């Protein structure tokens, strides 16, 4: 555990080594995220509320998206890169280390721009939503759970490359799909799409269920979110571990 934390700390130091670049990237990401809020504001100005959704609920939704996204892909950048790591041989160097391979890969890289999402999400939640202490506590907890679901889903997709080969297109498409569908209020979608978002493409557990818990906390919803988190985390771990048994080295020595 100490080794993993040390690797993670080194990843942060790597990102902070170029301070100016870090602050520029974070600032750009905050502006990027603000654009979505502006877009929804313009839309609601023209339509009024849509299926019970208004700009206040969008603030909650985007706070959760931003923080979950920032944790998954900012603090654990390699979550999205499992296929790439397998294909380009970077996995070989990680296999020789006396630490758990998947955990090492996940903490090995931090993404500066996506850390800006965490800053934006926290800022939006505390400034625009103005939560009570209980709501803030729920927000932190469900954002972390949502991040685990998202990260696990992408690790699962990336690990399929170990089993079936390929360049990892399933990982890219899965990322874009969960990214897109998580971004929008789930009530906009019809029955089949909603079913998909609660099953094969778990976008509902990344944003919709966490946002719902912040607005109207219920034990059953929390139980559902916890179940989804554990399910996807275990499935991702098992898929990666069993895939490693089939892995044959690409004989290219690089760092992950």
């Amino acid at each position, binding site marked *: 555990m100490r080794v993993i934390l040390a690797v993670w700390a080194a990843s942060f130091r790597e990102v902070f080594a*170029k301070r*100016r*670049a870090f602050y*520029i*990237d974070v600032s*750009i*990401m905050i*502006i*990027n995220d603000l*654009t979505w809020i*502006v*877009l929804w504001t*313009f*839309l609601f*100005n*023209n*339509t*009024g*509320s*849509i*299926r019970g959704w208004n700009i206040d609920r969008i603030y909650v939704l985007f706070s959760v998206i931003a923080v979950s996204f920032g944790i998954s892909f900012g603090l654990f950048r390699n979550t999205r890169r499992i296929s790439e790591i397998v294909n380009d041989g970077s996995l070989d160097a990680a296999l020789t280390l006396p630490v758990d391979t998947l955990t090492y890969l996940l903490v090995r890289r931090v993404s*500066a*721009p996506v850390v*800006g999402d965490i800053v934006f999400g926290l800022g939006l939640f505390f400034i625009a939503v103005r939560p009570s202490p209980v709501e803030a506590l729920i927000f932190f907890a469900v954002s972390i759970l949502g991040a685990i679901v998202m990260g696990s889903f992408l690790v699962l997709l990336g690990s399929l490359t170990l089993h079936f080969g390929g360049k990892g*297109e399933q990982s*890219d*498409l899965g990322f*874009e*799909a969960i990214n*897109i*569908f998580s971004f*929008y209020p789930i*009530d*906009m*979608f*019809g029955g089949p*799409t909603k079913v998909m978002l609660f099953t094969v493409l778990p976008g509902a557990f990344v944003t919709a269920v966490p946002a719902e818990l912040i607005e109207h906390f219920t034990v059953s919803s929390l139980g559902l979110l916890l179940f989804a988190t554990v399910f996807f985390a275990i499935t991702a771990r098992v898929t990666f571990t069993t895939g490693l048994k089939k892995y044959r080295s690409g004989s290219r020595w690089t760092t992950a």
Partner: protein
Amino acid sequence: MNAFVNVLRSAYVKQLRMRSGLYYTVGFYCIILVCWGAIWWAAIGASGGTIHGYSYERIYWYIAGTEAAVVCVSSRRIEAIGDDIAAGMIEVEMLRPASVVTIRIARQTGESFACLTFVAIAALVMGVLYTHEVPDPVTVAFAIPALMLAVACNAIALYVFASLAFWIRDARAAWFLFQKCIFLPGGMLLPVQLMPHALRSVVWFLPFWTMAYAPGRLVAGFHEPILLVGQCVWLVVLFGLARMVFAFGERRVQAGVV
């Protein structure tokens, strides 16, 4: 001009031959249309049937048009161009007896036109499935050049934006800003008519509407040929700007400053 056309044509043919990546783009495009189709269905329903002259069918074709034009040119290329500048690739390309930026724009445009070929087919299929309407011949006659001009303007504007890397090395995430300029003032997700009056006034003085709003509006069935004229004007302006800024950058490279 010969070199430009030859590079564009060979990039188009090459991309068509290596088309596995294009299937992923088409898949991504279809997902976006499913998503935004649902959102606009809900939004139009909440507004009583139309918003600023856009019915559901028209707004769906609008989104199909804007997304088709934008998805074929990845804004992330700005990051790659910046990396090429930093790595000295531009210096190597300057040895050739042709303008670096012109050849690169030709290659990018050719590849994007190949992508547009596939995406346009997907747009037609998705549009007919969701709206139960087939575009009339006049709409198609306006839409095709509008889409091509939008892709070309976007490909050129990438290089204008990316040339910042000759001066600033630390802005790897700057492509997000370019993308959001197309999203918002470009009218990619929201027609210009739905924007506040102040923003609407500014939008026409920026080039981003040529990359999304113009093709979207024409694909939606609004027969406004003035948009094509505007796209042509901005195409020339952007190309001149790209060549000028790249020339300044190349002088910095020659002086050993970059």
